[in-house]
């Protein structure tokens, strides 16, 4: 199978996965307890008004019509109206989604930069105290639930030392308008970002560290490393240019998958730090039976996972020409 065919097949699979995902979503939110109309139907309504409201929401239609209508809505990015805020869900969720992306991207960036560096050094100095200690630290970090790391950092840096603000995204007022830089570039914002991002970085650090170490060990066993050393190249050059560069491939693909998986972690981290992101919004929506918002949040988080898995597959074939396409 050629590259072209492989990509086409993966794209088709991506479409099928999305279809299955939104079908699961449809079924799940049909199973939600309580009458979906109850939030929209007030006690004083006459039976006619009630009928009219149900018809407006399309709930009098047969199930397959609702299913098709639902698919059409999702494709146009229309997630309906929030039961609680009474605003279009899209308006609520877009801002929250960006806030989540900024937080998780920062956390993952530091986790992978630090993890790759430490993992490479651990592989290079194998059987040293540094390596053994590094493994233990990585395993402890991986054992800590996100909310626990967050609360410890909060206790130490906010309640005890008072260095950082405890929650939210900025000190004054609520959501500010303005450009991207005004939103995400101010010192105040960065001070708020630091602890939640650090929490994510600590928790996600273990995977790249351990993976980088083990691929380094494989690469260092390869003959060409011995040849490079015999050529008289300095150790640092062999480490960075040859060993580390050739070890990085599996870490890159795992990074894509981890970005998707981090969506779950964002729910917890955002709750600890009251970060106005999608995860916290989802918890709030589920607790208040605000199903349209919960659904949209779940859909977007799932989409990130699906797309990142797809990217991981493509990255793998792109980065390693030796890969055979199944």
């Amino acid at each position: 199978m050629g590259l072209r065919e492989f990509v086409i097949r993966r794209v088709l699979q991506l479409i099928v996965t999305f279809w299955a995902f939104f079908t699961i979503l449809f079924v799940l939110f049909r199973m939600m307890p309580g009458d979906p109309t109850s939030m929209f139907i007030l006690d004083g309504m006459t039976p006619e008004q009630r009928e009219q409201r149900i018809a407006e929401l399309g709930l009098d239609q047969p199930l397959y019509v609702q299913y098709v209508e639902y698919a059409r809505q999702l494709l146009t990015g229309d997630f309906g109206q929030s039961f609680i805020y009474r605003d279009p869900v899209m308006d609520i969720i877009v801002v929250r989604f960006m806030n989540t992306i900024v937080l998780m991207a920062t956390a993952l960036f530091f986790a992978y930069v630090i993890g790759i560096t430490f993992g490479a050094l651990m592989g290079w100095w194998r059987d040293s105290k540094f390596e053994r200690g590094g493994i233990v630290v990585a395993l402890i970090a991986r054992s800590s639930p996100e909310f626990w790391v967050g609360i410890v950092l909060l206790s130490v840096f906010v309640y005890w030392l008072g260095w950082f603000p405890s929650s939210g995204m900025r000190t004054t007022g609520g959501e500010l308008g303005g450009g991207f830089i005004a939103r995400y570039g101010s010192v105040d914002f960065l001070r708020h970002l630091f602890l939640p991002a650090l929490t994510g970085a600590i928790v996600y650090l273990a995977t790249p560290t351990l993976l980088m170490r083990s691929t380094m060990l494989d690469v260092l066993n390869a003959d060409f490393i011995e040849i490079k050393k015999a050529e008289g190249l300095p150790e640092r050059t062999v480490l960075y240019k040859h060993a580390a560069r050739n070890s990085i491939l599996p870490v890159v693909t795992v990074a894509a998958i981890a970005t998707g998986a981090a969506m779950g972690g964002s729910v917890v981290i955002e709750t600890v730090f009251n970060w106005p992101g999608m995860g916290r919004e989802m918890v709030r929506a589920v607790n208040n039976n605000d199903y349209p918002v919960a659904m949209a949040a779940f859909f977007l988080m799932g989409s990130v996972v699906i797309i990142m898995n797809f990217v991981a597959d493509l990255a793998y074939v792109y980065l390693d020409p030796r890969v055979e396409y199944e």
Partner: protein
Amino acid sequence: MSTETTSPIDNAMGKVGSSVDFVRDKLEVFEGDRLGQIGLAILLVFVFVGIFARPITIDFLNITIPGLAPHDPTERGIGGRLESPSAAHPLGTTDLGRDVLSQLIVGTRVTLVVGTLAAFMAVFIGTNIGLISAYFGGIVDDVLMRITDIVYGLPFLPFAIVLVAILGSSIVNIIAAIVLILWRSTARVIRSQVLSHKQRPYVESAQAIGASNVRIMYRHILPNVLPLAFLYAAFAVAYSVIAEASLAFLGFGDPNMLSWGKMIFEVRTANAVREAWWWVFPPGIAIMLFVMSVFFIGRTLEKVVNPELRHQE
């Protein structure tokens, strides 16, 4: 490699080592592995505490073994409000005057139950799906693996939150939500192992003798992939415990069950994180130690099962 401790011929004859030998074999790997030993020791302490957390009455012997928890963890006013640690309450009290140490001890049970049950069921399902998928191949394989791919597209915690919200927060539903996601990684790995075993002579000879598919799958191939399933069970325990703790922390825990995650949820709802460190730190450290012990054990098993295996989730 230890995956092939039973020779192909033994397998073809349907001879599998006794379970006692199997366990002894597996325990030997902990010799000389300090992290694995530490993990095992910590885990055994938790299991002990979990079993004896509350009084156990054995009716026909007419005896009661006293529980480890000094107080009823849910009884209010055992001590004062938010008392810091003292001789009477080594870990202080909660905002309602409950004993934190007792809560911590009793909370061990939920962790053990969720961890073992969810992991066992997830690995059971995953192993069977991997086995069936690889053994029959063709359309069966296609269908099962596409389902696995789709489950890989579900975000773990958000999915669990939605499911628990729909079905209701009970320990059974929490376990179900975790299992519905967690089987996927086992299924994939077992499948690839079975694919390689399928090619080996012992399977062909069993087929030649006329053994049924079910017999070949479960009697001949399964014992060879079982060590890998055990390894995945260890990791599944870790993920289940973190998932349960996270759900409880977010307020989706079983309202009738006390767990470590729920303790931290209660500290937050009581707005006591700032002052009551004795209430915040113990449950978190317990979760960390428990999961860590499982990872340490998993690492030791990993070396045996497959030195090149890299675990990711």
